[in-house]
């Protein structure tokens, strides 16, 4: 797998069945089921501590690295069992963007060249792919004259878009976004939000957010998590209109109506 495959015509659906994440004795999330259709964006909402981030890290197996963490249940990309893939090729297909922008302390361009070189992309192809990723996130015109400068000299919003570009440059098919706008100022947040909206269709997206208005603006479907006793669980998963206008579960109604949470 040396040369990056062109993204397949349609991104895969993402299906989770009975996924639980435990840290030692503590259960972060119990028996979560959800399904994101090809090219759709699902927002994962719910109060802090209900296991949303744990659920995300179970999908690309970031949880594996944490001491005492155990994941059970199954994750499928279309009909492919994600558990059967080796970690590197799984993470190549399933990219992740974090809450805090975390570009590497390298130059802007090296932030993109580095993952490409790590995945064996020939040197002569790297810059073209990097440029394409930067154009994809609308950053090219802003940074094309300062590609050799430190990525840390960019503004917070630009850093977050660079991080998205760094993920996109490996041509993933699914994106996991962990509150990608919550550490940004309102203007940058708006720009990143529009960018995420523009990725729909080309990627299958699962985004954790605390911002219900944002979920409403962006998402095709919404999954509501809640804390049931000590552990998190999924209470409802439905289309965006359904969740906000005709919630099936009283907790959804109360949470999305702003009464609790």
């Amino acid at each position, binding site marked *: 797998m040396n040369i990056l495959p062109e993204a397949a015509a349609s991104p895969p659906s993402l299906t989770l069945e009975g996924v639980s994440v435990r840290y030692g004795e503590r259960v972060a999330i119990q028996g979560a089921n959800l399904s994101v259709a090809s090219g759709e964006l699902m927002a994962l909402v719910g109060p802090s501590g209900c296991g949303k981030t744990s659920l995300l890290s179970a999908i690309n197996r970031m949880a594996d690295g944490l001491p005492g963490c155990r994941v059970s249940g199954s994750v499928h990309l279309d009909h492919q069992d994600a558990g059967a893939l080796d970690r590197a090729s799984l993470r190549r297909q399933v990219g992740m963007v*974090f809450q805090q922008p*975390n570009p*590497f302390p390298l130059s802007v361009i090296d932030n993109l060249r580095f993952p490409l*070189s790590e995945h064996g992309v020939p040197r002569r192809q790297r810059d073209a792919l990097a440029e394409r990723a930067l154009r994809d996130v609308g950053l090219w015109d802003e940074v094309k004259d300062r590609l050799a400068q430190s990525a*840390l000299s960019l503004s917070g919003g630009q850093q977050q878009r660079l991080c998205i570009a760094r993920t996109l440059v*490996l041509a993933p098919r699914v994106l996991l976004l962990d509150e990608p706008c919550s550490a940004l100022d309102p203007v940058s947040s708006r720009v990143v939000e529009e960018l995420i909206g523009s990725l729909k269709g080309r990627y299958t997206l699962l985004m954790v957010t605390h911002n219900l208005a944002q979920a409403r603006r962006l998402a095709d479907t919404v999954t509501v998590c809640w804390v049931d006793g000590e552990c998190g669980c999924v209470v409802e998963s439905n289309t965006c209109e359904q969740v906000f206008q005709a919630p099936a579960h009283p907790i959804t109604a109360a949470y999305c109506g702003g009464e609790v949470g």
Partner: protein
Amino acid sequence: MHRSDRWAAVLGLIPWLLVVAPLTMMLAALWQQGQGVLSLAFLLEDPSRAGRAGGIASLLLSTGWILAVCLAVAVPVGLGCALFLSEEVRPGSATDRRLGFALDLLAATPSVVFGLFGYQFFAITLGLGFSILSGGLALSLMVLPLMIRSAEQALRGVPLSYRRAAEALAVSRWGWVRRVLLPNAASGIAVGVILSVGRALAETAVLLFTAGYVLRRPDSVFDSGRALSVHIYDMAMNVPGGTERAAATALVLVALLVLINLLIRRLVRRPFSGVVR
């Protein structure tokens, strides 16, 4: 300014003076005693008449060799251990505690013990005799805990968010270490090297037992050679009328330390330093 603030400012000066005053006094005393013999010739000539005449050229050479042997072992081995500790050992785990205890014990061991061991092991058992190699190797054992601890601190100080990004991108372990971890820890690692150089240059006891105190220029690392610190000790304690030259040598040693310090700091100045997240 509040009156109490003014008092605080004055009081704050006192500890500062307590630090600076002894340093100034020490340098002034050395200068007063040693400046008479200090000259370019002092640096370029070999000593004669047991050090009462001539300069310190051969000693500078021996010191350089000893330091080179010491760092050639201590830096890579220390960095390797530090990488193992920071990458493979979970903080607070049993392994971490055990290794930490061993390191602290080593760090607290008096240098004379390293000298005795170095003599027994390197000079006698391995048959290296009184030589620059024995001296450098014994010194490297002594500075290793310092090197490991400071490098480990520097490596553990690299933000976790970088590690998570690298994991999510399925970057190889080696790629992570080479491109992100080491460059980001470089200035902290350099501090470890500087501290190690300082301790190695200042060390006398270890070298008395291992490198010996022959005055002439060493032909190879298998020859005995006298380090500056040993020379200072010998001139001051064993050679009548050697005080002047001991002081002048001490001045050179201090100047050398400052120089090496500045040099290493310059070497590790990274293009993207200053922006710390």
